[in-house]
């Protein structure tokens, strides 16, 4: 099934299994969401569990926090990545901090679903990757699936978590198909997955760039380079053990994300790997990401977004570096 259908099925399952869950967002009911992720859920679970909310993001997050304090498990939808900012205060100064403010007495298990990333040919505010802003905020968990199977299971894991979760959905992969095993749970999100084993270099990616990284690894194979690809899945916490173990074998690391490289998670990963595996590195950790600009108009987004060639270029630079120093 498609990643979109997998999310829909995963959401249906948590609504079915846990009567304290409810969904809230703009256009998620009758319309089924602008991407139809919630299609049919209101008809099945009722207007009071799949709620078409007023058009106000801070209100959606703020009332979700109140519902969670009352014992519910709200699943809020933010229609697009760039529309999360009216709710940013509620997420960062309230949702993330309530557990510590209460010295661990209160839990606020709110899940916030956000379609993110570019490559869909849209107007401004519809293609952004703000994950680093949330990963920087202690108190939140950040997840993003890259396959339909993960989408099905990880959305359930997010909703079942006792902590608030920002669940980034790779919107340009909504129509990507893959097998979904609805009986065997996927590994916990906090475990990164080696989705392609290799011995010469490692690429870390997440969400929409996992297929790009895999394609780049495939292309590199033709040049005789055996490249490992890791799908990070969870961006807070990050599974540094899996990354470090891989780098200790390959000696080279490329981190690819759509968000601008400056201040992005690639920098954090590079720093941690330098701390943990300095002597295993054959070359500096290289980042492939967006440029330091607001997301550009769609006619030029293909030049902005990391693609196979940009990752291959980074691989070339990584290998070149070792050759020079050798």
């Amino acid at each position, binding site marked *: 099934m498609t990643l979109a259908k997998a999310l829909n099925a995963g959401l249906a399952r948590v609504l079915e299994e846990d009567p304290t869950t409810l969904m809230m967002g703009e256009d998620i009911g009758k319309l089924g969401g602008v991407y139809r992720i919630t299609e049919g859920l209101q008809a099945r679970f009722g207007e009071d569990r799949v709620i078409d909310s007023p058009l106000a993001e801070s*209100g959606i997050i*703020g009332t979700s926090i109140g519902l969670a304090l009352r014992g519910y498990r709200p699943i809020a939808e933010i229609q697009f990545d760039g529309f999360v900012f009216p709710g940013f205060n509620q997420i960062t100064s309230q949702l993330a901090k309530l557990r510590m403010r209460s*010295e661990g007495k209160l839990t606020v298990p709110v899940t916030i679903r956000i379609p993110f990333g570019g490559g869909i040919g849209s107007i401004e505010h519809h293609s952004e990757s703000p994950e680093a802003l949330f990963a920087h905020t*202690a*108190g939140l968990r950040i997840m993003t699936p890259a396959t339909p199977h993960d989408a099905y299971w990880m959305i359930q894991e997010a909703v079942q978590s006792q*902590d608030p979760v920002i669940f980034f959905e790779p919107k340009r992969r909504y129509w990507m198909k893959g097998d979904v095993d609805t009986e065997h749970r996927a590994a916990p999100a906090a475990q990164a997955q080696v989705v392609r084993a290799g011995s010469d270099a490692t690429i870390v990616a997440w969400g929409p760039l996992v297929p790009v990284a895999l394609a780049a690894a495939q292309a590199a194979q033709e040049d005789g380079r055996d490249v490992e690809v890791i799908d990070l899945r969870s961006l807070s916490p990050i599974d540094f053990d899996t990354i470090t173990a891989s780098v200790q074998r390959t000696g080279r690391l490329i981190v690819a994300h759509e968000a601008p490289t400056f201040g992005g998670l690639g920098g954090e990963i590079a720093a941690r790997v330098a701390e943990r595996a300095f002597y295993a590195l054959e070359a500096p950790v290289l980042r492939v990401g967006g440029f330091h600009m607001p997301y550009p108009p769609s006619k030029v987004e293909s030049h902005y977004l990391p693609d196979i060639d940009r990752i291959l270029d980074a691989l070339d630079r990584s290998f070149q570096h070792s050759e020079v120093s050798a």
Partner: protein
Amino acid sequence: METMLAAAPTQAPFIQLLDSDGVRTAHPTWDPWAQSVDQETLRGFYRDMTTARRLDDESTALQRQGELLLWVPLRGQEAAQVGAGRATRPQDYLFPTYREHAVALTRGVRIAEMLRVFRGISHGGWDPRTTGFHHYTMVLAAQTPHAVGYAMGMKRDQKGWDQARIEEEGGAVVAFFGDGSSSEGDVHEAMVFANSTNAPVVFFCQNNQWAISVPFEVQSKVPLVNRAAGYGMPGIRVDGNDVIAVHAVTRWALEHARSGKGPVFIEAVTYRRGAHTTADDPTKYRTQDEEQGWDEKDPLLRVERHLRANGTGQDFFGQIAADADVLAAELRATALAFPTPSLTDAFNSVYAEPHSLVSEELAWYQEYQAGFADRDEEGTQNRAEGTR
């Protein structure tokens, strides 16, 4: 309900049942809601207000002596807070800003627990689950959508209850905020959601005339209560220094909300007689004349006048003043004896479930601290946790 016309904010009419001379004035609409406030009940309100003022003063003194980081005085707002707090029931849930110390007292929160916040021990201080009194929210108005969400949850929990059960066990929520935070977008969104979902929530605005140094007129050209109509809910403007009137309208509002008729907006007109916080200096932005004008409208003074005129003797007043002194001494002793918190507790309260980064940093921190403990045996400075 009185119709509120667009009058100048300070001149608009409000509901008053006890004037500043302590005379109980008749009001056909609201008298039935004030009937439960007999002399004994009023003495209880007076005790609450006196206790709140005494502990408020003690806390200011503690701050001046360097024992608190900051204090947020409530002087002048005792009637608004006690009147509202005493109208709530145990099953209700209240979302304060950060000045609702007298409301806290009515909910069974010990002021000493609140001082944990102002002494740098905790960001929360007390247990909202047992008191129905949420933590203070320092980002103004952010708590108002929480209140609405909580009320939406309550409404779901009470679905299918008959009228008798709602009257007996039904809950409602109070969202406290002020004239300053009324300008924040979250108040607007909270009111939209509350009316859209018919949530059982009472928006209780203490208009204390000042947002730190900015006068009410900068926030609004018209009385705040006028906004209620724009959202489709009843609005009540009440003399916030009249504990009987505040109690009556809040009782009505809570019952309205609880019985499924939706939210209510109360504007309690009061005055922040003290500074915004102990870090503030009101002489820079308002006149002594203005402050003195409000002295005569003091919420405690009028109740005292009323009680004395109706036979309450000096013994009562002497006793509660003495009781308040005892509580103040206890407050001071408790606050000064707070154990120093541990950063380990902070690590452990970031997430409910294990988070590898936090675990790793905690392990590093503990090992680092342990290193100092070792060196302490060798006679160097002990930086181990829990020492100063």
